[in-house]
């Protein structure tokens, strides 16, 4: 029964998008709408398009900067994303104040409107929070409450571990099996008994679980862009109630906001990459690697063209750009995971291993590996790595000995890095430098 239905569904889709259905209409009354007569008639909103004909597509007007207006008013808005990125930056600082309680940091993570969790009063007034958007995309988690809960438990756990394991040993030098502080160049790092910096796990993990997941698997997804009446409204330029933008435009901009939400000039965000501690910073870092120079502009151009395509109702172009963004942003995560795993080998190889430097690299690497489960292969419903694969990498990273990173071998680092690089369109050597 299901088989039959499915087969029937395909031609039906093709049929309704075609205008040929009108060809057989008797051409008696001149005012009847026809989609092929070269005249705007009937309920058409343009010549032979709109209304009961196919939607009107205009030539795509791709502006030089990310600037879109309707009736002289900007249609770009991503306040919610900017707010969460700011909350994230304050939250990360809270990991470095050893007098903080777990309740305080957790409250920042799961902020409630009006509670004085942050320095910035605007953030306190906001009804937004980060935790409810952690592992919360429509594509990956709307029907996977189990993984969502497990992932949120990881983030909650890193907060409490920082407070219960690391804070009590803030004034102690870390050794294998004992939490405490380590020198990393002129910086000081605070690690768990196994060498992990929980603030780095939290930070780099959120790059995946919040920014990448929300942008790629939620806002750039047709399930969200075309939700409800979004497409019909966009076709007819019906704006969201009281707003200058259509819902579809807004969804696209919300994806943009998770990448560029704190840049000084949202029209030209690549001018100050590194404006937040999340994805933006690492778009900048990968851009700074000669092997990948141009990737920041590729991402920006795809966002811009995709947005212009929405204005022009050219949804195929929109979706092509979305796929490109998914590929490039996923690559950023893969490149940084490999980069840190490879970088860490240098300080570990010295006659006097620089554990603080190595563990800092590896904690960042841990977070980027974690984030791989939120990446998105273009034209696919899958991440580059499943949660199970990610979990296996992380177990592998920590199980060379009883003391985790204190015991990790270069072979383990190479093994994981190679396995990651192989699945992407870059080489180990390109990412490593």
């Amino acid at each position, binding site marked *: 029964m299901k088989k039959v239905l499915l087969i029937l569904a395909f031609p039906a889709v093709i049929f309704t998008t075609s205008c040929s259905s009108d060809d057989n209409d008797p051409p008696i009354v001149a005012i009847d709408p026809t989609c092929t007569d070269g005249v705007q008639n009937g309920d058409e909103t343009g010549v032979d398009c709109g209304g009961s004909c196919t939607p009107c597509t205009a030539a795509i007007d791709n502006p030089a900067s990310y600037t879109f207006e309707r009736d002289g008013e900007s249609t770009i808005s991503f306040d919610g994303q900017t707010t969460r990125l700011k909350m994230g930056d304050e939250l990360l600082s809270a990991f470095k104040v050893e007098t903080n309680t777990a309740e305080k940091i957790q409250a920042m993570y799961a902020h409630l409107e009006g509670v004085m969790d942050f320095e910035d009063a605007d953030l306190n007034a906001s009804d937004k929070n980060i935790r409810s958007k952690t592992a919360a995309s429509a594509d990956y988690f709307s029907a996977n409450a189990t993984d969502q809960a497990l992932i949120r438990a990881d983030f909650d756990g890193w907060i409490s571990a920082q407070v219960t394991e690391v804070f009590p040993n803030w004034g102690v030098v870390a050794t294998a099996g004992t939490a405490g502080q380590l020198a990393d*160049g*002129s910086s000081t790092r605070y690690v768990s008994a196994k060498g992990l910096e929980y603030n780095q796990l939290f930070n780099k993990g959120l790059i995946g679980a919040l920014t990448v997941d929300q942008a790629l698997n939620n806002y750039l997804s047709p399930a969200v862009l075309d939700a409800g009446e979004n497409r019909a409204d966009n076709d007819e330029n019906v704006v969201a109630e009281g707003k200058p933008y259509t819902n579809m435009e807004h969804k696209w901009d919300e994806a943009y906001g998770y990448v560029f939400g704190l840049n000084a000039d949202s029209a030209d965000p690549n001018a100050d990459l590194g404006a937040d501690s999340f994805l933006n910073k690492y778009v900048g870092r990968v851009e700074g690697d000669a092997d990948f120079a141009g990737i920041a502009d590729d991402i920006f151009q795809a966002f811009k063209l995709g947005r212009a395509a929405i204005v022009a109702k050219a949804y195929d172009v929109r979706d092509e750009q979305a796929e490109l963004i998914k590929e490039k942003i996923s690559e950023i995560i893969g490149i940084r995971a490999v980069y840190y795993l490879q970088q860490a080998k*240098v300080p570990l190889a010295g006659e*006097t291993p620089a554990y603080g430097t190595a563990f800092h*690299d590896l904690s960042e690497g841990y977070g980027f590996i974690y984030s791989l489960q939120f990446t998105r292969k273009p034209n*696919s419903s899958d991440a580059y790595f499943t949660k199970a694969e990610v979990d296996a990498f992380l177990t592998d990273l920590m199980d060379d000995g009883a003391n985790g990173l204190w015991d990790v071998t270069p072979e383990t680092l190479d093994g994981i890095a190679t396995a990651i690089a192989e699945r992407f369109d870059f*080489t180990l050597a390109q990412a490593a430098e």
Partner: protein
Amino acid sequence: MKKLLGTLLFLGLLWACSSDNGEAPVPPTTGNPEPTPPQEVSFERNTMLVNWADNIIIPGYEAFDATLLDLMTSFENFKTDASSSNLEAFRSSWLTSYKSWQWISMFEIGPAEVLDFRLNMNIYPTDATKIDELIISGLYDLSLPSNRAAKGFPALDYLLNGLATTDEAIVSKFNGENKEELLAYIDAVLADMKTRTASILSDWKSEYRNTFVSNDGASATASVDRFVNDYVFYYEKFLRAGKMGIPLGVFSGSTLPQNVEAFYEPEISNVLFLEGLQAVQDFFNGKHYGSDTSGESLASYLDALNTLKDGEDLTKVINDQLNKAREMVETLDAFRVEIENNDPPTDMLLAYDEVQRAVPLFKVDMVSAMSISIDFVDADGD
């Protein structure tokens, strides 16, 4: 249904596979040029290592250790009588010791590396706020990595020169209500410096000298290869960048005058730089510490290899470049004054450029002649 799913999956797999075909078949490369193959030359690396250890490094540590003893004596006098004249004497000993430090800061190998010597002695800018807090609390463990920016020479700079704007006011602090806490803190800072130095010197004189000298091969872990890396790293990161480039804003885009060495006594930033530059050059030429005699060195090694740079003797090219850098720096006002009073600080930038020009001579020309690979990379910075 299953069949259809299978077909779709198969198509998806096909697609996924083809996406990897675009991978460019570029062979893995490293950032460093391939070292040239070893040449047949009559140069004994062991003799050079002996000269370094016995005539430069150990005497350098001994001299530095002695200046610390003098510094502690001056402090004892100041502790007994916190007068202006004793403050002057204390400062003078501090400067002598700080200058002596510039001759050994580059030897971050072996026991110094284990003790993270350089960053325990000389992180600047110092953290004045933290120092104030620690003094008031009276509770501190100066061996912690997180307290490195609150001790060493820069902390003494703050405590001797930066507690107040006039000498009278500084002296009165040492006779005021927090007198005991202040003196106790300086005691702790000096003890930390002396203990580390004594431990490193003693290691060199017992075990490490022979370990260092006997590891005389040519491999990434041999003493010469490792030390040359440390030496070039010092020149590039600490002498060039730390003392000039960072305060000039070369890496940040805006000037950072608060990052000069000896910020609270800015007339000596240049003096400390010039000491460091002379130490680098004397080490290059194998000049014995505090003497005019020379032994086997990087310079004589290059000569033995008959290394030319654009037809010129590389040893001479390097010495000429270091001399030129020195001449340029000698004409400058205090670094802090140059940076604060000129926008952009053109004269100091021009001098910096000459200091920079020696970097590739060391890091590319010299090391490739010696078949040494540079093993350090620029840090990620976060």
